[in-house]
């Protein structure tokens, strides 16, 4: 196959990669902040589903996607609040509580969304920049996405800046590395951890809403299909650094959409095997990153997953 034939195939492939990557970018960025503060929230999948159903339902009823997105953030935050209360106030085990949040989110979203199956909304509009969007090749490749795609890129830059160059970022990192020292200096460890967890929940809710409002503008039970877990793996892959989250998410986005474009590229493999790719890729990537224990040890927030109580 020569280049002439490949380019018409490549452009839609690369363009749809951005759509598949955006929910991963968002969910992983939210989790990254949560984990940087020392809290391991395994409930992303649940928060995404709750966000997806809330965003879809509200958009359907109000007709405004922006209101839907806000509702999705609120729903994700609400789910994260349950988790935060159990883990931070009641000292519950973070792994178990995160699993509970995912199971709860799957059940709750299916319950709430039972009347929404089969309905559709208008997908988020694609932006059209004068001149830029009409460029050959680069137009469809870079300048014709919906606002959330660009928003997620900006968010990753913003989070990178906050973490490395602001006082707030320093406090979050300090609490993630050594909550006891941070507490001794006088920082409110639990309050900051609440904030980081709620932020993660809001962004995960947004990621879920991107699924139900942009990627496939409808509600399907369990529609996140493991993306929340892939986002968790992405945070490890990114060694807890925002710009590497972007890289990883676009890599995974590419693998995800390969299943829809595989036939076009001449891959003659049963669709189920192509659908396995994102999950298998997650495992491979984890192995590559974790193979060297020092990579993890140097980058992982030291207190990740451990409870903290000020009076002990």
């Amino acid at each position, binding site marked *: 196959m020569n280049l002439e034939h490949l380019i018409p195939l490549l452009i839609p492939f690369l363009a749809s990669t951005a759509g598949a990557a955006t929910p991963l970018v968002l969910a992983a960025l939210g989790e990254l902040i949560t984990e940087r503060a020392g809290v391991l929230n*395994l409930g992303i999948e*649940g928060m995404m589903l709750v966000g997806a159903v809330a965003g879809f339902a509200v958009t359907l009823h109000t007709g405004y996607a922006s209101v839907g997105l806000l509702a999705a953030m609120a729903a994700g935050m609400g789910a994260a609040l*349950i988790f935060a209360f*159990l883990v931070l106030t*009641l*000292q*519950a*085990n973070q*792994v*178990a*509580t995160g*699993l*509970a*949040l995912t*199971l*709860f*989110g*799957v*059940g*709750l979203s*299916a*319950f709430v969304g*039972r009347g929404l199956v089969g309905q559709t909304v208008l997908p988020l509009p694609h932006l059209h920049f004068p001149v830029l969007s009409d460029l050959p090749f680069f137009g469809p490749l870079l300048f014709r996405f919906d606002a959330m795609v660009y928003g997620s890129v900006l968010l990753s830059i913003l989070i990178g800046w906050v973490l490395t160059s602001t006082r707030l970022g320093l406090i979050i990192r300090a609490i993630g590395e050594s909550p006891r020292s941070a507490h001794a200096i006088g920082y409110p460890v*639990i309050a900051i951890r609440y904030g980081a967890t709620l932020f993660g929940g809001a962004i995960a809710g947004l990621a879920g809403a991107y699924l139900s409002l942009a990627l496939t503008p409808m509600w399907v*039970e369990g529609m996140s*299909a*493991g993306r929340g*877990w*892939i986002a*968790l*793996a992405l945070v*490890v892959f990114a060694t807890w650094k925002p710009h590497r989250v972007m890289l990883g998410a676009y890599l995974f986005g590419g693998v995800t959409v390969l299943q829809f474009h595989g036939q076009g590229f001449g891959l003659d493999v*049963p669709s*189920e*095997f192509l*659908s*396995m790719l994102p*999950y*298998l890729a*997650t*495992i491979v990537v*984890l*192995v590559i990153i*974790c*193979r060297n*224990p020092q990579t*993890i040890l140097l980058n992982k927030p030291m207190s990740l997953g451990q409870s903290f109580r*000020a*009076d*002990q």
Partner: protein
Amino acid sequence: MLRLEARPEPSRRMMFASPLIAALAMLITGSILFSLLGQEPLHAFYVYFIKPASTVYGVGELLLKATPLTLCGVGLALGFRASVWNIGADGQLTMGAIAAACVALYFHDSEAGWILPLMLVAGALGGMAWAAIPALLRTRFNTSEILVSLMLVYVAHLYLSYLVHGPLRDPAGFNFPQSKVFQDAAMLPLLVEGLRTNVAFLLSLITVAAAWFFCTRTFAGYRMQVSGMAPAAAAYAGFSEKRNVWLAFMISGALAGLAGVGEVAGPIGQLQPSVSPGYGFAAIIVAYVGRLHPLGVLLAALLMSLLYIGGEAAQMEMQLPSAITGLFQGLLLFYLLAADLFIHYRFKRSMRTVSGAVAA
């Protein structure tokens, strides 16, 4: 003002009371939910939680669904005790079901007596093989077994979907995505005529007893428990972490695989696109509600099974959405985790409100 205070010792009484408190809180929430859905709460409560288990057939169904939950739950509980997080039991169950189905379909013309034992062995091995991947990657490459075992659930489900749409589809099945119906020799014998409960339930009881023996009477079980409760002490004593990870995954993988055999060679009787309504995930809740103790797991599995069949009954009789089952499951675990606080802490009236507020 009330203040939390650490107990000098974990409360054993609270440890046993906590699942009951959680179940009670779930029932109360359920009743509120029922009335919000426009149902008369007491009637809905009766239809959901009491009526399904009040007939002989209902009890049979209760035991039937408790079987895979017990098998998976016991295996997971052993791992959780050692802080080995296998959350991919649903995938191991699926692979066990596939392996057993391959045996049944390969010898489809035979009614020999050795087919069923061979299926059980194949199922256990299938589950173990699938569980070996996260165990290997964790011990060899330090990879999170949580993420790997979970990713493999999706892979196993897709593989099953491929098989029933392709190579294992019944050629005479009008293109439905399902395999041939198993021959009689490949079906688990029923315990009581007229009920669907089969000998897999006895198998789960034996498993509970064996797991209890393993946990309390063997050195390997002791090593696993120490590693979970005090990793530093376990390392100092020279207990191998790798051995624990392997042991936990092999046991839970084999049991999940057996649960898969119990489904395809039991109520399902063939391979279908889905062989489990999330038993592997519900088993996580079962393990916790059962206090990670084999006997507790059995009781918790019965409770969880009641949630499943109650959900079905509520759907049929009151048109309540079946998704309510998942909601109850999640709520139950939340309430349990919250109630568990009081194993280690208790409320104390505090006069020092100012310092109390600072400490909190």
